[in-house]
């Protein structure tokens, strides 16, 4: 590139000759890589859970941990004290540690034994935040040189400035005077603003405006120029850019959300790249301030060090992180061990649901109630089943298969009420029940007029001069408002959903499903759409026969006051909205007689006596509201009455259970207190949301009915026998399971490192741009959940566990979905979740390893956990995977070694028949461990990491070399999946991890 053009005069190049500088194509690749590592952040108006590690899904969990720690000093694991405490309190037992150790990849430098690991754990790791990143940014280096004082180094100022500017650019309604340049692209608008903005110079950053103006107008060109001037080595550019983005991770995440939304509709969007350019140019401006030789020398050294990045997928490079990773695996292993034991202890039901008293196939249970898969539904479903055993409950994503855009009265557009992976397919308008067209027009007009009058009043309140008069006339009225808000009698502001409507109208509003054109857009559903969608939904719910007289479809939502994160408690499957509209739409369509006829033609015969009823589960108060009750046919009147009684009992039971975590268990006034929480404007924990989530079940309810899953499991109903072609399984694994994993990892991230992946302390939250929150008065936008959502101060209410997915389906079918969908494959193979398979009797039979391989679990897992016997014989017999003769010998050997270690672990939670074979394999597992630990000791002695810089394929051969003969011979029968060859032979840095973390 033309350096003379790009480089402002007098800016010396820091290092490197031209040969080291990347080309534009390489730069674009690096930019894409850096931007790809940022997960999106949904705005607070419809906040949904996002996997904060979304950009790392393509690499293994442990590689992501290593990289985040190295590049941005961000931890993805708990502090050591946590694991120590878990050991001390018996949550992790020594056998869990042993199991974790034995499944550690062979090339890791790990302690020789569980005891050694536990000893090593006693030492806290100073490097957590102390060790400098391998690729230093200017900001990083300045911070280091200022001994961590980010005010003195001006990096805190930089972040405040970028954040303030982003807030102005993205603002959706907080500011009265909007950023004048916001119509342009971000980088362009920022450049334009910086022509006038003297704030950096007032802070002592001389020549800031000139520095910005001298750089190219194009954002990529600008990044390129800076990279070149700074002399960032080619190999380090992506990490450099990634670390730069991490400094402004919150706004980067919001930009990523905008990109995500554009891409969802097939549009290209470079918002994030533009933002990156802003950040990189800022760093450059700081760089220009420091011309002293000390800084320049340090910079040159940092860039030299950055030229040879380590390989993140070999966590063994860093024994400290290996120890933390192993402890996390042990912690999760301990949970799995207990969960499997609990599931196994359940009396196994071989028969399909015994709900039908008569032999008549058509007769189902008296009531079926479908709930969202949300973990909070599990508590309610268990309560309902307990008070009313003849009720059959069903779990399904809470949008009930209707991806709608719900347009409220007076709005032009609405929110997307569907999982964020989808785009709405239908537009549904809110209407007023039993209202004539004239009346509706009146109501709409009145709402809009009230809105305009309110707007004039608001302007009076906020404008420069009139605000003084506002205060003197209206201020005293706030005395009574403060009292009534404090007492929970009023909301601090009106409910946005009902604001401007009269009380009698509010009671009548609901979704309108009739097809009609509103504002030039087709809304509602025509006859064909209704039938198609109804069929799809029923099949996806595995609800195609044995319909009950009353079928409830219960969405969920929360009621909280004064809570910026309110929508995080609403239904994620409805895109951060309440599920009311979706449930009502689904019920109305399924009650449509013409739909019933159409469905009958398609093989789903809903009896004439079946009535669908939409409802809403208030997850804060655990009440259930039923909608359109006046339309219930007379024949169901009694049943509906009994149902209401049961629901009331179930609600009370549910509240009593939840009261434990709210710290009010056993009190006589539990209900009053819970209701008060939902209205308390000072309540930072109105409910616990999805805290505690740890498992996902896809299978018939009978497999989990009767087990107390403690509100920690997503329950999705699924019957593979009625799933022709496994299309429903595919749907479940690509949508609800992925969403559950997003939720799980969001809670995980917010727990392990609330500073990086959570939104910090709620008592400091400061809503900015009506988009997100700042912690305090400035700084970066915060992502994720507040600390108050995962801890009550005394303990963690959410345990940081990766999701344990249980699927009741044939292994081939699950493998089919995994093979077909890359994102599912990434989740499973890279250990972002743990996958288990259930047989038809509901026993957990297999555990997924990777690349389509499954490891069988022994038949009875209830007792004698001490057993160390492996199930190697079963592996040999049952292995799913066909032998692949194409594989080279050493690859097979290394894979085998891992299988042996893994299966030794699985045996920890199981009991198996003692056999000669298992005895042999136990030996082999031990010998593998000791071989690996011998290697550890060797390398420790020579102070050289075992395989630093060795490409993966050679690492594998090292592995096989250290494996003992017995390992090799015992496991030579085990075969590997054919996809493995391509996967494991690629010695790439970012994705080529052949060795799984656990």
């Amino acid at each position: 590139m033309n350096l003379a053009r790009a480089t402002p005069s007098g800016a010396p190049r820091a290092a490197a000759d031209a040969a080291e500088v990347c080309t534009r194509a390489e730069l674009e690749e690096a930019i894409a890589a850096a931007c790809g590592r940022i997960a999106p952040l949904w705005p607070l108006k419809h906040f949904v859970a996002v996997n904060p590690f979304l950009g790392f899904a393509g690499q293994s969990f442990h590689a992501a941990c290593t990289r985040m720690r190295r590049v941005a000093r961000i931890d993805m694991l708990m502090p050591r004290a946590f694991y120590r405490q878990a050991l001390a309190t018996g949550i992790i037992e020594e056998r869990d540690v042993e199991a974790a150790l034995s499944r550690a990849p062979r090339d890791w430098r790990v302690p020789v034994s569980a005891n050694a690991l536990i000893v090593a754990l006693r030492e806290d790791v100073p490097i957590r935040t102390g060790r400098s990143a391998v690729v230093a940014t200017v900001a990083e280096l300045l911070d280091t040189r200022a001994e961590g004082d980010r005010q003195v180094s001006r990096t805190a100022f930089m972040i405040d400035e970028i954040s303030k500017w982003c807030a102005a650019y993205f603002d959706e309604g907080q500011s009265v005077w909007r950023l004048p340049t916001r119509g342009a692209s971000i980088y362009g608008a920022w450049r334009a603003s910086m022509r006038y903005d003297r704030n950096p110079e007032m802070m002592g950053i001389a020549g800031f405006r000139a520095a910005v103006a001298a750089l190219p107008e194009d954002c990529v060109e600008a990044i390129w120029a800076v990279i070149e001037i700074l002399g960032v080595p080619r190999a380090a550019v992506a990490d450099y850019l990634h670390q730069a983005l991490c400094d402004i991770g919150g706004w980067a995440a919001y930009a990523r959300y905008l990109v995500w939304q554009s891409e969802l509709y097939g549009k290209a969007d470079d918002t994030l790249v533009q933002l990156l350019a802003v950040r990189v140019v800022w760093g450059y401006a700081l760089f220009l301030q420091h011309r002293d030789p000390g800084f320049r020398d340090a910079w040159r050294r940092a860039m030299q060090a950055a030229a040879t990045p380590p390989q993140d997928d070999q966590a063994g490079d860093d024994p400290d992180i290996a120890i933390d990773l192993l402890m996390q695996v042990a912690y999760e292993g301990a949970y799995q061990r207990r969960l499997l034991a609990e599931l196994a202890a359940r009396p196994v039901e071989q028969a399909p649901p015994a709900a039908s008293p008569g032999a008549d196939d058509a007769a189902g249970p008296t009531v079926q109630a479908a709930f969202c898969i949300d973990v909070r539904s599990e508590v309610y479903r268990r309560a309902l089943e307990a008070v009313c055993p003849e009720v059959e409950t069903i779990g399904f994503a809470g949008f009930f298969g209707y991806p709608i855009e719900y347009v409220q009265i007076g709005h032009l557009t609405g929110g997307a009420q569907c999982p964020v992976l989808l785009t709405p397919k239908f537009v549904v308008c809110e209407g007023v029940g039993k209202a004539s067209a004239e009346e509706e027009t009146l109501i709409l007009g009145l709402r809009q007029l009230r809105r305009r009058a309110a707007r004039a009043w608001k302007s009076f309140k906020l404008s420069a001069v009139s605000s003084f008069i506002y205060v003197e006339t209206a201020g005293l009225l706030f005395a009574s408002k403060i009292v009534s808000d404090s007492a929970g009698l009023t909301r601090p502001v009106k409910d946005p959903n009902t604001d401007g409507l009269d009380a009698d109208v509010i009671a009548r509003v609901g979704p309108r499903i009739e097809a009609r054109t509103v504002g030039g857009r087709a809304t509602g559903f025509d006859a064909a759409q209704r039938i198609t969608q109804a069929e799809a939904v029923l099949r996806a719910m595995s609800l195609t026969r044995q319909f009950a007289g009353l079928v409830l479809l219960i969405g969920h939502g929360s009621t909280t006051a004064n809570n910026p994160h309110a929508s995080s408690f609403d239904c994620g499957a409805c895109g951060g909205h309440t599920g009311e509209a979706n449930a009502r739409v689904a019920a109305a369509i399924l009650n449509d007689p013409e739909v019933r006829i159409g469905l009958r033609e398609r093989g789903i015969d809903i009896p004439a006596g079946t009535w669908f009823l939409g409802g809403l589960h208030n997850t804060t108060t655990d009440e259930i509201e039923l909608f359109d009750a006046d339309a219930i046919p007379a024949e169901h009147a009694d049943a509906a009455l009994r149902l209401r009684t049961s629901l009331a009992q179930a609600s009370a039971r549910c509240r009593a259970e939840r009261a434990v975590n709210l710290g009010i268990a056993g009190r006589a006034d539990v209900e009053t207190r819970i209701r008060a929480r939902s209205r308390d404007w000072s309540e930072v924990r109105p409910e616990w949301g999805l805290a505690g989530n740890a498992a996902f079940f896809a299978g018939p309810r009978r497999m989990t009915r009767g087990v107390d899953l403690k509100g920690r499991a997503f329950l999705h109903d699924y019957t593979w026998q009625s799933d022709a072609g496994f299309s429903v399984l595919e749907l479940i694994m690509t949508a609800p399971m992925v969403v559950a994993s997003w939720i799980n990892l969001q809670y995980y991230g917010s727990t392990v490192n609330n500073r990086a992946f959570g939104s910090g302390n709620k008592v400091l939250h400061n809503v900015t741009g009506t988009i997100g929150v700042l912690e305090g008065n400035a700084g970066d936008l915060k992502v994720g959940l507040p600390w108050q959502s995962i801890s009550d101060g005394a303990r963690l209410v959410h345990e940081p566990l990766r999701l344990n997915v249980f699927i009741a389906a044939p292994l081939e079918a699950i493998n089919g979905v995994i093979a077909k969908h890359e994102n599912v494959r990434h989740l499973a193979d890279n250990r972002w979740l743990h996958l288990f398979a259930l047989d038809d009797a509901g026993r957990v039979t297999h555990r997924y390893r990777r690349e389509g391989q499954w490891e069988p679990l022994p038949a009875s897992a209830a007792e004698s956990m001490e057993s160390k016997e492996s199930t190697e014989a079963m592996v040999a017999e049952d292995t799913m995977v066909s032998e692949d003769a194409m594989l080279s010998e050493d690859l097979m050997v290394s894979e085998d070694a891992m299988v042996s270690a893994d299966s030794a672990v699985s045996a920890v939670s199981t009991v198996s028949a003692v056999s000669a074979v298992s005895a042999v394999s136990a030996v082999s597992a031990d010998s593998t461990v000791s071989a690996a630990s011998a290697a550890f000791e060797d390398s420790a002695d020579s102070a050289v990491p075992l395989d630093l810089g060795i490409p993966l394929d050679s690492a594998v051969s090292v592995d096989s070399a250290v494996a003992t003969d017995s390992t090799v011979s015992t496991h030579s029968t085990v075969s590997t999946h054919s996809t493995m060859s391509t996967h494991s032979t690629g010695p790439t840095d970012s994705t080529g991890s052949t060795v799984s973390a656990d």
Partner: protein
Amino acid sequence: MTNNLLWLIAAGPGLLIVVGLLPARRTLAAGRRTSLLARIAASASVAAALGAALVVLFAGTARTECYGVSGIGVSLYLDALSAMMFCLVAFIGLIVVIFSHHYLDGEPGQVYFVRRLCLTLAAVLLVIVAGNLALFAAAWIGTSMGLHRLLIFYPERQAALLAARKKFVASRIGELCLLGAMAILYRRFGTLDYAELFTAVRAWQPAFTPGLHAAALLLVATALLKSAQLPLHGWIIEVMETPTPVSALLHAGIVNAGGFLILRFSGIVALSVPALDTLAVVGGLTALFGSVVLLPQTSIKVSLAYSTIAQMGFMMLECGLGAFSAALLHILAHSLYKAHAFLSSGSVIDIARASWTPSPGGQPHPARMAISIMAVLFVTAVISPLFGASLTEQPGVFALGAVVALGLIHLIANSIDERPNGYVIGRTVALALLVAISYFGLQFAMEHLTAGVLPRTASLRGPFELAIVVATVASFGAVTLFQSILPRHASQARWQALYAHVSNGFYLNTLANRWVLAFWPNPPQPNTFQPYPLNLMKKPKP
């Protein structure tokens, strides 16, 4: 002497001090317990405040004897002013204490938070009921100290330290000014007891010496520094580094102390023309500064902070124009409004979700606005003398009346947009009428309530005041016009430049930060700080 029963009202602040000094360990249970005790103490303060209000209502101004040496000591003084302020602060204190109970639940340092809150609240209450300048000054300093401890509730937050240090500098300068004023007054009158002091000052009235002018100016400086006025306002926009209830107490209780000081010593300040002019100029500038810089702010709490700066400025302007009872009304109303605004700041997402419709009516046209404004100014100039509020007789009333009219015009003009609608306009005009009636009604009532306590609005002091009044009316009119022109020209280069300067608050705070960092850099914080408790595994009691 029955007046010594007045000491009973000291029980409120007294209990708060006791709770604030109770030994307690840093545990969650201790935090909750202390919080409940604080609620009792704060309720007692409210009871004491109501008692005080009754005393003043039926017995008029009351005071205790002064325990101390030659008027320096401990005494209480109750009149309409202190009774109203006592009620206000005790009420907001109770609300804040109640709010904090759930809000800070689970916070490991809750016990410290509650204790500091109690001590700060007690100090503010003592400022209000103090009966002599010495106690007043001690409580005044105590307020700053308590607030400082609250601001650094999270000592690991560097931004909190920076803000607290800026505040520290401003507070210390202010306290020096206060002590200086105290020294001058004591030298002149030989007492610091209010009753004696105020009587002596009134007797001295005809011959106001330069020394007394200096004392008045020092008092004004103290008040301006306390109320975050230009140019040392920067700390108040950065104190969101501490939990929301502190912001509520600060913006609704503590910044008012500046205004209260002026009102308390209005007998002295009102006699000094330079002091009043200073108040009017600084207050007026701050009011305009705050309300314009507020416009481009993007976060709710920073917006509210600029609003506080502006409102305090307006209150100071009212004092400077001699409209003391209007200033008291402003303090009361603003405190209640701002306490609610801060405590409910989490609801801003609800508001955003409700403001969905793109306005069907568009924006009001600036030309119409300009004409309206000129009409208003004309009407004010011509009609208000008919009601006795002539420019020379009551300049304060005249200026403030013009501001009221501007506000009403803004309200009505906003309802007459590109597609005027009878319902909207009718409703807004009715609202405007209601606003006007309540405004003048409240002003009248307040003037009545404080008759004899606060000086009445005086006639024109001289040409400089005339200039201030004219400048006030003209600049407020200009800002109103500016705001209605804004949306149409925003993209022009000079507006872009103006936006940059305004959104940065004309760089005043940046310079202050740079200065504080240069002379008082933050010590690097240990990186190993663990913000959240790690005793994670304890299961809840079933």
